[in-house]
């Protein structure tokens, strides 16, 4: 091999090693910071792991929201209107569009008692917008599986904007 080829070979091997190392790091670190989403049925059936950070979601059960009278603690029940429901505990400010009957997401951990300790509550920004994770759930107790225009929620205006996020409010 002539020196020039050799140099090129070394460079290629070096670049491959660096690229491989970075990819491995990416997979490793994204795996550590990845939150799985679980619908209510999975939370109830025990498919969702206890004591790990995860995301769950559902509709806020009517008349289930209870505020503490001394601090910002709140509890409510999330349901899929199909019989699966679980309670959520949270301390803090709820998003603007948190309402009974609305679809919301919670991030946090599941306790062994089956209560979800939320560190974050995410709701949609817009009346017509559905949190992506809840698209597959039934929104109404009655049979009306998807909200109108589900493919392109009318939050397109917000999507045009980079800072709006994936249309969540937290």
């Amino acid at each position, binding site marked *: 091999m002539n020196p020039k080829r050799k140099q090129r070979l070394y460079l290629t091997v070096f670049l491959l090693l660096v690229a491989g190392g970075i990819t491995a790091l990416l997979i490793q670190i994204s795996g550590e910071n990845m939150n799985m989403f679980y619908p209510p049925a999975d939370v109830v059936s025990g498919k969702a792991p206890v004591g790990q950070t995860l995301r769950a979601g559902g509709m806020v059960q009517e008349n289930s929201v209870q505020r503490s009278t001394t601090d910002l603690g709140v509890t409510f029940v999330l349901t899929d209107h199909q019989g699966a429901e679980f309670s959520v505990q949270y301390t803090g400010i709820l998003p603007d569009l948190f309402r009974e009957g609305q679809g919301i997401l919670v991030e946090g951990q599941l306790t062994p008692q089956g209560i979800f300790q939320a560190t974050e509550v995410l709701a949609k920004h817009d009346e017509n917008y559905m949190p992506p994770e809840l698209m597959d759930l039934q929104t109404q107790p009655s049979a009306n599986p998807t909200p109108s225009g589900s*493919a392109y929620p009318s939050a397109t*205006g917000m999507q045009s904007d*980079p800072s709006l996020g994936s249309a969540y409010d937290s």
Partner: protein
Amino acid sequence: MIPELGNFALALAGALAVGGAVLGLYGPRQPVLQHGVLSMVFGQWGFSLIAFVALVYAFAVDDFSVAYVANQSNTLLPWYYKISATWGGHEGSFLLWILIMGTWMVAFSLRSSQFPPHFATRVMGTLSLLNLGFICFALFTSNPFLRLIPLTPAEGADLNPLLQDFGLIVHPPLLYAGYVGLAVPFAMAVAALLEGRIDATWARWCRTWTNMAWAFLTCGIALGSWWAYYELGWGGWWFWDPVENASFMPWLAATALVHSLSVTENRGTFKSWTVLLAITAFSFSLLGAFIVRSGVLTSVHSFAVDPERGMYILIFLALVVGGSLALYAARAGQNTAKVGYELLSREFFMLINNVILVVSLAVVLWGTLAPIGYEALSGGRISIGTPFFNAFFVPLGLLLLGALAWLPVLNWKRTRVEVFTSVYQALGIAGVLGGLVWFALDPASLLVAGAVALALWVLLTHGRQLWLRWRKGSVPAAYLGMTLAHVGFALGTVGIAITSTQSVESDVRMTPQSSMELAGKQLIFNGIVEVQGPNYAAKQGLFEVIDGERRYTLRPEKRQYFAGGNTMTEAAIAPGLFADTYVSLGEPLEGDAWAVRAHYKPLVRWVWLGALLMAFGGVLAVFDKRYVRQRRRLQAPNAESVTA
């Protein structure tokens, strides 16, 4: 009638784009055709402008028979929001995109006499081809002029309240000017590959356009971040959200390009790499458009249900990336430079800069696409949180700062070791000051002290070199621009480090006349008053802040919009160069109590000021004598050849 006129004008712009593309890419061999391209470029811009004005007019007169207007506007909307609602949704914002594309093309053709005629013709041809792709997308998949006849609604659905804001009036145009502006260096790279000529002169031509586009993109992103901070009502300024990342990725590629171009211009090396970056930067603009516009973020499933827009962009993206990379593969190999450089040289440090920026790009790309890929493959849903991005961006950012500090004393090709004495001295001073900051603020956060020390180091070395040059009387605009941009980066990093670790954030339950303490200030809640806006009713909280001698009142609002019934939180901010006091209303609790969010955010403004300084530096560099001189020099002989 007017909307149909707009539709027709857009179609005409498309037809002219076909003409411009054919003539521009075929024309270089036929001098007669070159002039035709110029007029077709002006035509595309003119007709896009007519289409855009037609849509603005439909908004101004509340023409709800146009579906897009009915979805985005409302008679109660103040006139300025009616105008800005034009680009508040998908279809209209894409029309704005096309108008801005036309504007860049016209800007280029006005300067086209600076370049050899066939090069300029090829650039305009490539730009017309891209514009054709955009116009077809608007016409066939997202036409803003579609009518709702005979089912015309009497009232519009209203603009999303979050978008009823000054930030939205200016943010998309700036951001799009950056996105689309990257098409110019892309087209220049394609033209250079077609010509088989990539050299220092080409890099010099490319630099001014890249800098301008990059400056727009920087301002657009900074403005978006500022807007999110005051408008979303919870005090964050960056969320690593896919839509934010869509704008951050082309920015990272463009930043790498700005630096790589400097090497190609000054040393004639890095040529193939520079061309590849020019292609990459614009490709990421398109990828961003795909991520934001296709609905793939909402759900892979919903994308599969109505894939028209997404598929269109995906195919367009594949054609642009595939075509330009094929051309690159065929032509770029011919341009290897025999220019050597040592480790302690400006070239090598530019290489470090480029590697860090490209790795950052890979990180953002992975963090954005992995959830989408996971859903497509397994059907499950995951989210990748901020810790993932921080794990990479904290070390990468610090590394970049550390490399940047050496730059002022580095020469091209090789640098004598003796000149580094001043760099070590600066490091010593910065280290001591950083140590003081560490003690003063928070002995636990060594990383913050490190970031502050590194930023100080950058400021010191850059300041010293600027001073030395100033005394010698040789500070070209490009040098000043570079220094300002680097100072902006250092200050922005300090802002990020301090505000993300030293902020005080408390969410509390407050009853009227109760008070709380926030970072040495006293905050008294004086109850709620009702106020009326043009299209909303609001509950306004009165918060008196006592900060030593200073007393002022903050008035955050909870707004209820009449149309659509949306609720909006309007934060009240007492801005300061060194710290913001931020209060927003949560929800009403039992009795008269309210959930209140109160933040104290030190140096948060430095994040955006740093970005603005960077953008300003980039623009300043464009006005350097060597670029202005080049314009004059090239204009003179070409003017003659036209008249001859």
